C-alpha cells in the first residue's frame, strides 16, 4: 500500500466520470449498461474496488481478453519445461500460443525441455468420431519420441468438451501404461469469461493430480520456500530466484516459470509460499495452506521501493539470520538502484503512463514507474477479480480512471483524453498507439526484453521505459509538410 493519497494535476473524480460518460455515449443502451459498472474513478482511501469485474465480455466490443485455454496452456502449464503439453483439438490454439508468451526455459529442446507445439490437429473426422483414440496413440508417440519428458499435460480445446470426449479416462489409462504422469486439463476456451478460469481449472488440476506426488531428495530446512506465480517472462525467475537465494532462502520450486514438474509436485513440503501473480495462483496457495498448513505471502518485485518493502515483509516471517541477510541485500542494491534512478529519472520525471494488462501488472508495476518519477493515470485489467481491484485502489493516484476488460474503443478514448507519455499494454494495442505517436511497451511480454522482476529487472525496465519515451523517432511522426 502506498504511503499517502497521490493526486495528478487535472484529474478529479468529476473529470474522470465525465470522461467515462462521454466514452460510453456511443454505445447502445444494453452495452452501455453492461459496461458502465466496469469503469470508474479510483478511490484510494476506500482501499476497495471501484469497478465490477470478472463478468462476461460484451459481444462485439473488441476486448483484449483471451480464453480459459489461453490461461491454462499459455500461463500455467506452458512454462513447465520438462513436460510435453498437448494442445488437444484443432491446430490453431496451440499454434497461436506457441512461443508467444516468452516464458523462458532452460534445458535442451526436445530432450529435457519442450517449448514446442504439440497438437492432435483435429480433423473433421475427429469431431465426428471423437478424439479419444487419437489421444491415446498420440500419448504413446510423445512418450516414445521424448523419453525424458517427466509428464504430459492434455489441454482441451473447445471441440473436445463440446463433442463429449473423455480425456480424463484416456489420461488415466495411458498414465498407467506409460508409467508417467499424464494430466488431463478441461480448459476448453468457452469455459468462463476469460483466461482467469483457465488458471483456476489448472490450479485445481495441479491439486488433483500433482501436488504431493513427489518429495525432495535433499533434507528439509527452515528456509525452504516456493516461488508461486512467477512465470519467468523474459527471464524474470532468473532474477527473482537468485535474489531470494541471496537472501538466504532455498527456492525449492518455481510455479511455473522454467518449472520442473517433480519439484512442483513436492511443493507441499516447503515452509512458505511466496506468490507474485496472485490472480493466477492464489487458488493453490490457499489449497496448500488449508491442506498442508503452508502460509503464503504476496510480494511485489517491481522497482526498488516495492522490492525493498517486499523483502522486509518476507524477512519479518523468518529469523534474524534472514533479516540480516535481507538488510545486507538491500544495502548492496540500494546504491545500484539509486544510480539507475539518477540516470533515468531526469528524463522521465512527471511523465504519465496508462496500463492495461493481465492480472497483476496493472497494480504491481505502478511502484516501479513511480520510482522513475512517473505517474500512472489509468489502469485496468483484462481478467482481474474484485480482490485484484481492491489491491489496486491504494496503488493508483486519486480519481484516476480504472477500467475492467475495456474495449479498445474505451482505452483509446481514455488515452486521447489523458495524453499519456507511455502506454503499457499488449501486442493488440501496441501499434494502435504507436500510429498515434504514443510510445508504447508491451507489458505482458516485456516487449521481447526483460527481465523486469527483481533488482536485475529494474535496470532493464528503466532502460526500456526511457527508450520508449525518449526515442527521438517519435519526433519524426508528424510531417513538417
Amino acid at each position: 500500500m502506498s504511503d499517502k493519497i497521490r493526486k495528478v494535476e487535472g484529474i478529479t473524480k468529476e473529470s474522470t466520470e465525465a470522461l467515462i460518460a462521454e466514452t460510453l455515449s456511443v454505445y447502445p443502451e444494453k452495452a452501455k449498461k453492461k459496461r458502465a459498472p466496469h469503469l470508474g474513478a479510483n478511490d484510494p482511501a476506500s482501499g476497495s474496488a471501484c469497478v465490477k469485474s470478472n463478468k462476461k465480455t460484451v459481444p462485439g466490443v473488441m476486448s483484449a481478453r483471451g480464453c480459459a485455454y489461453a490461461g491454462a496452456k499459455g500461463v500455467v502449464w506452458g512454462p513447465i519445461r520438462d513436460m510435453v503439453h498437448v494442445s488437444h483439438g484443432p491446430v490453431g490454439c496451440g499454434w497461436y500460443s506457441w512461443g508467444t508468451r516468452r516464458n523462458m526455459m532452460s534445458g535442451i529442446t526436445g530432450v529435457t525441455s519442450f517449448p514446442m507445439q504439440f497438437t492432435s490437429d483435429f480433423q473433421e473426422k475427429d469431431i465426428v468420431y471423437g478424439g479419444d483414440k487419437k489421444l491415446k496413440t498420440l500419448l504413446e508417440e510423445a512418450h516414445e519420441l521424448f523419453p525424458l519428458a517427466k509428464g504430459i499435460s492434455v489441454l482441451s480445446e473447445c471441440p473436445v468438451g463440446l463433442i463429449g470426449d473423455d480425456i480424463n479416462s484416456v489420461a488415466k489409462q495411458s498414465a498407467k501404461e506409460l508409467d508417467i504422469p499424464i494430466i488431463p486439463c478441461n480448459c476448453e476456451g468457452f469455459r468462463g469469461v476469460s483466461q482467469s478460469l483457465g488458471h483456476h481449472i489448472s490450479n485445481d488440476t495441479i491439486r488433483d493430480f500433482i501436488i504431493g506426488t513427489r518429495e525432495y531428495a535433499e533434507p528439509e530446512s527452515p528456509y525452504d520456500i516456493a516461488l508461486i506465480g512467477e512465470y519467468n517472462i523474459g527471464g524474470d525467475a532468473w532474477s527473482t530466484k537468485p535474489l531470494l537465494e541471496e537472501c538466504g532462502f532455498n527456492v525449492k520450486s518455481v510455479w511455473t516459470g522454467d518449472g520442473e514438474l517433480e519439484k512442483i509436485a513436492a511443493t507441499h513440503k516447503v515452509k512458505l509460499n511466496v506468490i507474485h501473480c496472485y490472480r493466477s495462483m492464489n487458488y493453490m496457495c490457499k489449497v496448500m495452506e488449508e491442506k498442508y498448513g503452508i502460509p503464503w505471502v504476496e510480494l511485489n518485485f517491481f522497482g526498488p521501493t516495492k522490492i525493498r518493502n517486499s523483502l522486509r515483509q518476507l524477512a519479518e516471517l523468518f529469523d534474524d539470520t534472514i533479516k540480516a541477510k535481507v538488510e545486507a541485500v538491500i544495502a548492496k542494491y540500494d546504491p545500484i538502484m539509486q544510480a539507475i534512478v539518477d540516470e533515468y529519472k531526469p528524463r522521465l520525471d512527471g511523465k504519465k503512463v496508462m496500463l492495461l494488462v493481465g492480472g497483476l501488472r496493472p497494480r504491481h508495476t505502478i511502484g516501479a514507474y513511480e520510482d522513475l518519477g512517473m505517474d500512472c493515470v489509468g489502469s485496468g485489467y483484462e481478467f482481474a477479480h474484485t480482490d485484484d481491484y481492491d489491491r489496486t485502489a491504494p496503488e493508483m493516484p486519486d480519481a484516476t480512471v480504472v477500467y475492467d476488460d475495456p474495449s479498445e474503443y474505451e482505452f483509446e478514448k481514455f488515452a486521447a483524453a489523458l495524453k499519456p507519455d507511455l502506454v503499457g499494454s499488449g501486442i493488440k494495442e501496441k501499434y494502435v498507439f504507436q500510429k498515434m505517436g504514443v510510445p508504447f511497451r508491451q507489458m505482458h511480454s516485456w516487449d521481447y526484453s526483460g527481465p523486469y522482476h527483481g533488482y536485475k529487472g529494474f535496470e532493464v525496465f528503466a532502460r526500456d521505459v526511457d527508450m520508449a519515451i525518449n526515442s527521438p523517432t517519435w519526433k519524426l511522426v508528424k510531417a513538417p509538410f
Partner: protein
Amino acid sequence: MSNALGLEVKTIVETPPEEVERVKEWINTDEYKEKNFARQALVINPAHACQPLGAQLAAHGFEGTLPFVHGSQGCASYYRSTLNRHFREPAPAVSDAMTEDGAVFGGQNNLHEGLENAYAIYKPKMIAVFTSCMPEVIGDDLTAFIKNAKQKGFVPKEMPVPYANTPSFSGTHINGYDSMLLSILQNLTEGKQIEGRCTGKLNLIPGCDFNTGDYREYKRILEAFGIPYTVLADISDSFDSPCDGNYHLYAGGTKLDDAADSINCKATIAIGSYSTAKTFGWVKDNFSGKHASLPMPMGIEKTDAFIMKVAELFGKDVPASLKNERGRAVDAITDSHQYIHGKKFAVYGDPDYLMGYVSFLLEVGARPHHILCSRGNKKVEKDLQALLDGSPFGQGCKIYMNKDLWHLRSLLMTDPVDGIIGDSHGKFAARDAKVPLFRFGFPIFDRVNKHRYPLIGYQGAINMMTEICNKFIDIKDDTCEDRLFELMR
C-alpha cells in the same frame, strides 16, 4: 507410499547426465527419424494455422470492413495478435464472445448483440463474419442468424454482412481466406452484374499472401501496363499504414463499390491456385470477361507468365519499363548465381508459397532438396513434382506432404542442407542444424519490415536472390580462416 489423492509418492531423481547426452544425440539419428516419421496422431510444430486466421486476413482486405469472429473472444485475440506480430500493425477485429451458454442455446444472441454493438461503436461499412470452433461444432445457422439480425435492426438491412464457415478442424488458414473472400465477393456483387457493361478493368486476386510489398508490386506492375485494375482483398494499406499521429481503424482495403463492380470486369486473375481455388471456381462461372488462375509470380519464369497473361488478356505489349526491369532482375541473378548454384535448401510453407520458392530455386540453379508441405492435397504434390521433373536441379529433391517442422528437424539433421526457406517457426530447427533460415512467407515474428519487401515480380526475385546470396557470403566471411578472409567475394 501414496498421497492424499491415492497417487503414488516418489522421491525426485534427476535424469543422469549421460542419459541426457544419449537422448540428445539420439534425436539427431536416422533411427529417430524413422520413429518420428512413423507418427500417426501427434503433430509437433505444424507449419499451418487454422481457417479463421485466413478469413480475418481476407476481411481486412476490404474498405471499412470489421472482421467479426463468431465464437469465443479468445479466438479473436489469437488471430489478432498473430497478425499484429507479423505486420507490426493493428489488426482490429471483434468477436461475439460466446461462452458455455452457446453450447446450450446456440450463438444467435451473441451474434445479434455483437453485431449491434460493433456497428454502433466501430461504424463499419461491412462486417465480415467468420466462425471459430464452437459454432461449427454446435451447428449454428448463420444464414438465418444474420437474416434475423437485419430484420430486428441490429444492423442496417443494406449493410453487407457476408459470412464464412471456417472450422478450425479442416484445412488451414488458406482455406479460411478462400471461403471468406468468396463470401464477400458473392455478397458484394449480388445483383450487380449488368448485361453489356464492362468496366475495362482487371480484377487481381493476390491470394492468401501476407506480404504487403507483394500487393504494392502487383499494382506497380499493372500501372506500368497502364491497365485499370481492382485488387480484390487489398491488404496493403490495411497492414502497412503510415505512422503519422492518427490511428485509422480501417486503414485500407478494396473499395466496396469497386468490389461490387468487379463482376463486370474485363478479366480476372486469381493468384495462388490453392488459396483461391473456391473463389476462382465461382468467379469463373459468375464474373464477366476472361479468367485465369496463376501461380504466385515468384522468380523470373513465373513472373514472365504473369506478365504475359496480363498482356494477353488486355491485348497489350509488355511495356519497355517492365522489359528493362526484367533485364535488371536477370542481371542481378546472373551476377550472383555463383553464390547459390548447387546449394541445397529445405523449404516449407503454404502450397502457393512453396510453388514459388521451388520454381525460383530451380531457375537459379539451387536445389529444393527437402520440400515440406504442412498441409496439402495430391494436386499440390503433383504440381511440385512437375516442377522438380522439369529441371536437372530438381533431381534427388523430395516432397514431404502433410509433415511438420519436427519432421523437418529430422530431415535437416540426417540429410543436411545449406539453407532453409520458411517462416519464423523454423528458427529452432535451423539453429539445431546450424544453417540460415531465410524468412519468407508467414509468420515472421522475429525480424522487422520483411513484409514490406516483395517476393513476387522481378523485384521480388532480386530481393530473394540478394538476401540469400549475401547471407551465404556473410557466412563465408564469418566462418572462414583468417587466411581466406578477403576483400572481394
